[in-house]
């Protein structure tokens, strides 16, 4: 197990270098960052050249990358063009997005798995068909539609929630945005759990558990669920990375100043340092999530642990 973790950590190095380099190059082709600074007017060539020199933009790209990475490892993500430290932006944006992700994941676990178990055990009954239909709708409708609709109905028409989240972004204000963010994954979790439960319900070891005279709830939770949740846990784990980075739409709708919001602003303003910085951290989050999922897999399934 220990050696496996070490090997996986080592494998993360080339992935990390490759993906950050790619981002770095892509942001570079995005356009001249200096041009964006001067707004609509043409920049004064002398000022532009000076700024270029100041930010090290006159050096070749690979050298820029090396300098940048060197700085990143000392905790310096650079300064945005407006003079704000990127780390400062991160320290306000990440806690908000992490809270939002926690809400979304919890909703996925609580609602998704419950619905999945209920429908999986009652396959073909009205409950099952109904839930299945709803999940299909949720998957088909884009997040911005569900988001705006909920905002309009719950926030504006009925006044149940604040239509836009305050800058402190406490947990209770994040419930509806969290639901919107989780919606598609939630539908997938429901379907995945349902299929997995329905499949394992007919399995021999469940039959054995029944033949042992175990109470029904024990058969379901201890025998059926333990086995059926292996693919679901994998999905949810991998989804954490997606949710952290993919909150752009949801954060825009509910005016949440999190990672997605900052990224969006950074791209819009061609703020290279912000974009690269945030994406670098997201890459790390993503890699760590995947590692945790793989380790979790081994914890849940002894056949993998001892293989």
């Amino acid at each position: 197990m220990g050696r496996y973790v070490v090997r996986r950590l080592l494998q993360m190095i080339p992935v990390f270098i490759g993906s950050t380099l790619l981002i770095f190059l892509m942001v570079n082709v995005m356009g001249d960052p200096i041009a964006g600074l001067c707004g609509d007017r043409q920049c004064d060539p002398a000022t532009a050249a000076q700024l270029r020199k100041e930010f090290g933009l006159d050096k070749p790209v690979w050298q820029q990358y090396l300098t940048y990475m060197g700085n990143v490892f000392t905790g310096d993500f650079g300064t945005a063009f407006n003079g704000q430290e990127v780390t400062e932006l991160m320290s306000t944006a990440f806690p908000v997005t992490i809270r939002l992700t926690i809400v979304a994941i919890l909703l996925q676990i609580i609602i998704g798995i419950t619905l999945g178990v209920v429908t999986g055990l009652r396959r073909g009954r009205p409950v099952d068909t109904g839930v299945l239909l709803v999940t299909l709708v949720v998957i088909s409708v884009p997040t911005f539609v569900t988001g705006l609709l909920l905002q309009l109905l719950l926030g504006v028409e009925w006044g149940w929630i604040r239509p836009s989240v305050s800058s402190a972004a406490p947990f209770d204000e994040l419930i509806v945005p969290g639901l919107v963010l989780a919606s598609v994954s939630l539908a997938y979790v429901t379907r995945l759990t349902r299929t997995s439960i329905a499949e394992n319900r007919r399995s021999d070891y469940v039959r054995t558990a029944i033949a042992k005279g175990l109470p029904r709830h024990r058969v379901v939770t201890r025998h059926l669920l333990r086995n059926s949740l292996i693919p679901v846990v994998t999905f949810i784990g991998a989804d954490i990375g997606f949710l952290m980075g993919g909150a752009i739409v949801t954060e825009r709708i509910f005016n949440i100043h999190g990672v997605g919001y900052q990224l969006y602003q950074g791209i819009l303003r061609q703020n290279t340092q912000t974009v690269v910085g945030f994406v670098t951290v997201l890459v790390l989050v993503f890699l760590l999530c995947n590692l945790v999922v793989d380790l979790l897999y081994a914890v849940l399934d002894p056949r993998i642990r001892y293989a």
Partner: protein
Amino acid sequence: MLLEVRDLHVEFRTRDGVAKAVNGVDYGVDAGETLAVLGESGSGKSVTAQAVMGILDMPPGRITGGEILFQGRDLLRLKEEERRKVRGAEMAMIFQDALSSLNPVLTVGDQLGEMFVVHRGMSRKDARAKAVELMDRVRIPAAKERVRQYPHQFSGGMRQRIMIAMALALEPALIIADEPTTALDVTVQAQVMELLAELRREYRMGLILITHDLGVVADVADKIAVMYAGRIVESAPVHDIYKAPAHPYTRGLLDSIPRLDQKGRQLYAIKGLPPNLMDIPPGCAFHPRCPLAQDVCRTDVPPLYEVTDSDADRGSACHFWRECLHG
């Protein structure tokens, strides 16, 4: 009688129609007795056992008639909660494929101990000790260490021993073994079968052994019930049936056993295929494959005739049992 199945009917409702899997089965087992239930796949032998255990998939399965008397109580009239307490504690089942029948993500100790935790209210620690004891009983070496292992870390024979240990855990009055050795290597089959027979003697349990292996039956069974298309077609003490079968289907089965003294000759096989359970032939279900079939077989369902030519308690569901017995 420990267990008595009377006129049991089970059918499965599927999209293609109703499959009549069990059509009026009667059999009984006494304490300390071994009944072998013999038959091809689809003959209803496993379905009957599952109905007795109360683990039939319902739906699509449905018990449409009959009684299952166990220690004098009709199990089919019990509430599910009472029925559950009978399962595992008073009657237990051993399944064919131990690998898929054991939970892959729980240790064998947990799965064995669970019986004591649920039915006897023991603590996990005491249950673990009981599990080790059971594994010793079924002669699994190094039980103390292996109790923490998972099913996939055991060999096929050892896994089936764990299944046996699990069935024996609460010393039930009846054990149903559904083809317990089919998934095992031939060399291991005999060991497992011997162990099962020995433990049955020791605990004086009734045993229903479901099999299609006639070789296994001869050694361990007291009596045999042969099933075909969801009915018992012949029942008899084990030695009588080997000496002279009273049903052409049993005769066909016995003739299909490869024999060393008939080297070089083509193996005998019963001609035709087992009947489609959605469309069982009228009259005697076996008539399309029977060498003795007459017109009456195509119209009249033969009852289980008492075989009067024998001292033993025998029955045959063949209009021409006498011809078969002496022919």
